[in-house]
Every structure is written in structure tokens, then in C-alpha cells.
């Protein structure tokens, strides 16, 4: 099983790619406060997480994964 820190780094990197801007390590980010994180970027981010981790997310996951921490947690849960 992948380490949480490794998963968190990949999640952060994919979100940075989706938003088109760097995200510093330790930077807390949530959809409500980040203007670049719109619905289009959100789906793009979700699809990239699926590709990267080989997982399938459900619409409920999409709705819940609105900050870096929750994204990391949901991915870890999927990875078992």
C-alpha cells in the first residue's frame, strides 16, 4: 500500500496540473477559496486521479473531494 505522504504528493501534483499553477507543499487548498478550481477543472482533476491511481471514483466522491486533505483520504480509501 502506498504511503499517505506519497499519495498526498501525487494528489497535489495533479491538482497543480489541473489548475495550471504550482501548489506548495503544505499549502492547504479548497475549492471554495480557489478561483481557478471551477467545475471543469474539478472533473479534470478527478479524471487525472483515476488515471494516476488506477481507481474509479463515484459521483459522491466527486462532490466530497473539495480540498486536498479529503482528496488524499478518498484516494487512500479506494486504494485500500
Amino acid at each position, binding site marked *: 500500500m502506498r504511503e499517505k505522504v506519497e499519495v498526498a504528493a501525487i494528489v497535489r501534483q495533479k491538482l497543480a496540473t489541473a489548475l495550471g499553477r504550482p501548489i506548495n507543499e503544505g499549502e492547504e487548498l479548497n475549492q471554495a477559496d480557489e478561483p481557478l478550481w471551477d467545475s471543469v477543472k474539478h472533473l479534470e482533476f478527478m479524471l487525472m486521479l*483515476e488515471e494516476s491511481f488506477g481507481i474509479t471514483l463515484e459521483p459522491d466522491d466527486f462532490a466530497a473531494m473539495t480540498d486536498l486533505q479529503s482528496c488524499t483520504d478518498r484516494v487512500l480509501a479506494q486504494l485500500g
Partner: protein
Amino acid sequence: MTSSLPDAAPNLVQPGGSSGVTPATQSADVVLMKAEWLPVLFAKAPTRASLLELRPSWPLQKVSVRVHRNLSCEFISSVAAPYLAFAGFEVNWIYGGYDDSLAFAESGNVDVELVWLDYSRFPKLTSGELVTWLTSRLADLRSRTRSPILINGDIREESDLNRLLLEAIDPLPGVHVCNLANIREETGEPLLDVRNQKVAGLPYSNIASVLIARQLGCRWLPGVLSAGIKAIVLDLDQTLYAGVLGEDGPLGLRLSDAHLQLQRTLLRYRDRGIFLAICSRNEPEDVWAMFSQRPDMVLRPEHLSAHSISWDSKALGLQNIAGDLRIGVDSMLFVDDNAGELASIATQLEGTRFLHAGPDPNVTRIALRNFPGLHKWRDDKTDELRIADLAATAKRLDAASEGFSRDYLKSLHATVGFRVSLKNDAHRLQELSGKTNQFNLNLRRFQASDVARYISSNECRAVGVELADRLSDSGLIAAVFTRVVGDDCYVDEVCVSCRALGRGLEDLLVLGAVRAGFADGSTPAALYVSYAVGPRNGPALQWLRRLTGEPLNEENGVVSLDWTRCSRLLEDIEPFVNEIKVQVERDT
């Protein structure tokens, strides 16, 4: 003798924008960077993340595409960006609102109009009804813009909409269907995703979106924005097979399934009129021995229209091949496993396109299948004729080298057909305007909609010229666009394929086309011919200078010709032609 051009015909829009351009000359760095991108861009299943991480560092041509849609195309356009950058473009996407009714509320000049629909949103209509409605909406859009129009096909396998749509839009000039059936051939993964539909209004799966983006960025948009490739030139070692002929010998070369598929892909291009050639640093006798000892090579010597096999530089070899094929080096794609060599050649040859054949022949095959500039919207008869016609050209040159004479011309038994404003010729006439470089008098690069206006306007003529002789049928090889203003005739554009040159028939092809435009037997009081000086249209300008008997002093201008003298030139050459035919569209 130079005079100013009177007002253009009222329905004709002066061309401009970005159509018909050849991507700018590439630096060595650009060639190497593009080579590094290939495994990402042309993976069997490219990932969204890896595509979005690609950032071009070379200059791109900015173009605008307006999207008329009823779904979230943003998920496609985002990953189309690196493919478009590979093709040399940066697109400004102008999205309309979600509109099932295709009201086309947005207006303003753009380079391409893109209609992208989720056809499952029209459940009450049969495919036939839907296509009838779509065709009327596309005709409406056609009447509002001269830009190319693209519309997507239906991605659903069971749909018969694609066939019906292709048939229905055929008469609409400059309207093309993006065939999504190709996507199904590229992946076994599901193409639809109800989850994406529910969350974001995107009916496609992630992989389908990415593969659509690849075709949009590499095939469909470059297919209306850039000049086409006329020849694929191939290296041999480590490109068509694994191994080095000079070291491994013919029997030591390794042909994988992927290499064989790559070679089949090349033959499919040849079937569509793209020349194949070899440029290799090898001993010629070794190469021909390899072909004879390796019957498992799908690509055979008879498939090659030209070759340069020597120890000279490949830049020189490519120039020689271009000469043999009678095309410019900027109409060629060179495929070679040596990225450094490609980079070096890029600094010597302007406009040549390059594909690095990396270690995985599957990547090369997929890249070739999608390479910008190789997409053709439709097959036509001229494509089939092109390859055979080149071989006949060599025989003509042999005959002519014995002394060009009227006897030589007579021996060709040439038949020339003038086809005046025939709607069915519109696509080929536009292709000639877009592709012809050497004998292109005014470099106007007409859009399909411009050609349609020349065909339909009472004052204008779009004359296609077909040519056949005892050696080959060249098909439709020239386009002459004219306008009649009062008693005078204005020649706005003349495009003659290089395949028709060298037979001493240029006067007949051009002046005969002008005369054919006067179907009632009348003749113009004066003939005004427009020209523009370009980098490679010397043969056309030389022809015009011969007719005027004076130098062309301006970069762009109009010269007047005495029609009596033109008539004499026609009378001089006509006895040596076997047959001259004129066909006029009757229902305009």
C-alpha cells in the same frame, strides 16, 4: 501595362487568415522537443495528466475556433492543446452557450466554426430527421461565414447518423464531418461514461475525450488550417525495421508486428495519393538486395515514387527527392530514427516536417496515423491518379529531352477538358488553390466557400481543367478563377498542378480556361491578370512575363493582355492536341 485592380465581385471576400499556411521553419531545438513529446502524444492510451503537463516552448500560430455545442467541450479542448501545439497552433476557443437549437447567436470572424453535439439529446428525432435539420442549420451557418465548418459525427456505434450526415452535407462547401468511428478503432475501452454526463454534462469517457482531442488537434483542425503533406520520406534502418542493414545484413533485420503495421499504414497513405520515398545512407545494391531477400517487408520497391540511397547528406537527399517528385521540401514529412540528424536537417530545409522514429514502432505508427497535414477529408479520383502520373512524367521528360517540339506534343495525344463552374469540382478546385505552389499566380488560397461563390455567381467562373495523354490520366490539374466586368475579363487566380507542367501546354490550360468561361462564343475586350510574387511561384510568374513580354515590377499587381494575341497563342497550339472538350454547368 500594369493597372490597378477594379473592385472585386461583390460576393467575394478577400482571403486572409491562417488557412493554407505551412508551419514555420523549425529550429533544431523544436525538432528535438517534439521528438521528446511523441511517446506521450502518441501512446496507445495517452493520459490526461501527462498531456496537460506538456508546455510548448516554440512559437505557435494563433487561431480562433468558435464552438457551437450542447455539451462540455472544455474537457476535450484542454487536452487538445498539446496536440495543436505539436501541429504549430495555439487555439483561442470561443464557446457559445449550451444550445440544442443551433441558433448560431454568436458572430464575428473566426478561423474555424466547430459544431459539437451530443446527439443523444435529440431522442424524439430519427436519424434522418435529425440530419435533415442539421443540414439546414449548417447551410444557414455556411451562409454567414466563409470559414471552414466542422461538425462531429455520432460516437454511438449503433447510430446510422454518420452515414446520413456525410451524404447530406456533401453539397455544402467547406463543411466537414469529424468521424468519431475512428475513435472506436483506437481503444477497446468504453467511450461513454454516464457518470461524467451526470457530473459535468460530458457524455464521453476520459479516454474517449483524450482520443477525440488527439484527432481534433492533429487531424481535423490542421486539416482545414494548414497545407497538406504530399510525400512521406522514410529512413530504413531502425525505422522500417529493427537493425542496421550494413551491419546485420538483410536476414538479420527484425520485423515485428508493429513494423508491419507501420508499413501497412504507409501503404494506406499511398492509396490516398501520398507519395512514399526512401532517403537512406546505405549502399544502393544492399538496399535492393534487402528487398529481394526479405519478401516479408510489406513496403516494396514498387511502392516507392522516389529514393535517395547514398552516402550524401540526407538534406541533399531530401532535396533530390523533392525534385524527383516535383514538390517543395515543405510538402514532405521525413521519418528517421536519428533525432540529431532530423534537428540538423531542420536548420537546412525550410518547412520540411519531421517525425522521429523512436524505439517503439507502435508510437511511430500512431504518430503517422495522426500526423498533422496527412488527414484528407475525402478520397477523390485525382488521388488515385497522382502516383501513376508521376511515373508517366519521367517518361515525358525523357521524350522531351530529345528536343521539345510540337511533334513531341502531338505524340502525347493530349486531351484537355475545360469544366466550367461544375459544382462537383468544388472540392478539387479548392484543393488546387490550397496546395499548388509553383504555378500559383496570385497565391489567394481560396476557402471552399470562396470557390462556391465563383461557381454560383453569374459574373464569375471557376474553370477546372482536366488533362490526359497517352501515358496517363492526370485528372483535374488546373483551376482558373475569372470574373467578367463589362466587356473585360479579370483572372483572379490561376493554379496549375506541377504534374501538368513541362508538356508545353500552359498557354492552352490557362487561356483555354478563360475562353471556355465565355460559353456563348464571345471573347473579352481585354484580359486583366492578377499576380503576387511569392517565394516559390516563379514558374507561374515566368509564364506571365512571357505573355506580357515585360518584367513584372510590382510585388502584387495586375497586367493587361491583348486577347487577340492570346487567341493566336491558342490557335498555335491547338492543332497539336488530340481533343479539347468543354463542359458547362447548366443549372446555374
